[in-house]
């Protein structure tokens, strides 16, 4: 049994907009094979578990239905590791700028 996520929690839901096979005719083959999917965030209307079909209300007050996939969904993009390939740029161009005029 999963944990109950309380009504009013900030969550993310998921639903399929167009199943594979019903996609627009112009999309390439690899994309035809997968569904068009949608995710949206909002406040959970009634307590539920991950995986349940639920309803949410968004920050602007619209209702959406879908599968509950995350409670308090994080932003996970970041800067990450230093890029060694870029580290030389600063010193290199400062050196060129310092070189005497010929």
């Amino acid at each position, binding site marked *: 049994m999963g944990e109950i996520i309380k009504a009013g929690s900030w969550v993310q839901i998921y639903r399929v907009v167009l199943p594979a096979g019903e996609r*627009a005719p112009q999309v390439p083959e690899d*994309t035809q094979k997968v569904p068009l999917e949608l995710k949206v965030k909002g406040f959970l209307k009634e307590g539920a578990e991950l995986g349940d079909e639920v309803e949410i209300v968004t920050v602007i007050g619209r209702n959406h239905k879908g599968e509950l996939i995350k409670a308090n969904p994080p932003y996970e993009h970041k800067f990450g590791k230093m890029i060694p390939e870029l580290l030389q740029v600063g010193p290199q161009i400062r050196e060129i700028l310092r070189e005497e005029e010929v």
Partner: protein
Amino acid sequence: MAANDYNSVMARKNEIMKKAVGIDYAQFSTGQVGFDYERMMSEVGYKLDEIVKIQSETAVGKTPFIELKNISKLARKLAPSGKGARIFLKDEAANPSGSYKARRASVSVYHADKEGYPGVVAATSGNYGAAVASQAVMRNLETIIVQEVFDSCGVGQPEILEKGRKCEAYGSEVLQLSVGPELFYTFLRVLEDTGYFNASLYTPFGIAGVEPLGYEIVEELQEREGKNPDVVIITHAGGGNLTGTSRGLIKAGADQTKIVAASVDLSGLHMASDHDFNRKSFTTGHTGFGVPFATWPDRADVPLNAARALRYMDEYVTVKQGEVFYITEALAQIEGMERGPAGNTSLAAAFDLAQKMNEDQIIVVQETEYTGAGKHPMAQLNFAKENGIEVKNGDPDQEEAGKSVIIPEHPSQIKARDVDLEKLKRSYLRKVFEETKVEVIEKVDLEFLADEIKKSKVETKEILEKEFDLQVAGG
């Protein structure tokens, strides 16, 4: 109740759009192939002085105009003697939402408010969403952004994730979709459900909103240097940035300034491919939009696109992803300005073009964009590495989009590579004739087509007769 499957909704497209932008586009058509572009711009849009007033209400525009002294000096050191133009930069990141897109959103949002729409919707993965959301906050309207975010594995580009976060930061509802052009279908359904205004990127409102950018450049350069820019270089994707800026330059009297478009070279990657989606390090300013939109502007989300880049472009160049990351690093390291990479596309190209121009000439890079986690060379190159893209130092000519990102070993390797504009003009014409099946070109048609490809009527007539075997009745 109306059916909501893909084909039924698409069939209602025109009806939905008409309600959601409030423009009757049919009134502007002329002849068999065209429409009266200038009449559309002047009747639907707002006048320059009205726009300046609208934008001053929401802190848009009047961004800093900066001479990049160190980057200009670096270019001069690499150039033959007597060459090396001065490079100026318009710091568009200083707009409220962090990019020139605030200009584009400002007029649409003003108009939506004035017409009594309760909210605005925009379909965009990019800076435009944040711009619409930010402007809507200032005018107390609700916003929904429809965004293409992730592939079938649920993985999203860091740059797009950041832009989605920014929309949410301004209190908008963000519908995040997987890869595919049916984003447009979802967008139409949202418009139908809500009755909100379609803050399309491509209405006369959006394009006219960019005109002050060109105007400000001329005013500031005149005041400081007493001359117009020799070249203005513009990062190009859907074509609104170039169209609006060029119109503003012309309105300010700089009709001799050469307009250069610049895009990141992503040739070989398919924009609607689930597989290719996360193999690019740029989500705008690239050839995947730049070429198709230049050659067929009316692919947009409104019947007549007000962004028509071929009307204004004198040259079109591309740069490699690795070169843009290099120049982004250089802008931080020797100018003290940390800005987002996509917005520096035209700066990378300007760095090379300046080396071919005379010392007393001026090239203006007309924008920057904000940077931050996700929207940064580090984030994007780490993501590229995680997706199996080789990132290395080397000769950027060897870079292959989707396989490698090559950071130049030396700044002299940064190059602006010419796109064959004549070829693009032909592919535009081919598309017109495919769509309209016209056989005899009348006088109005010839005039329209000549304006569309920025050629004289005589030259256009010759192309139509000799290369397309068409009969030209007028001209």
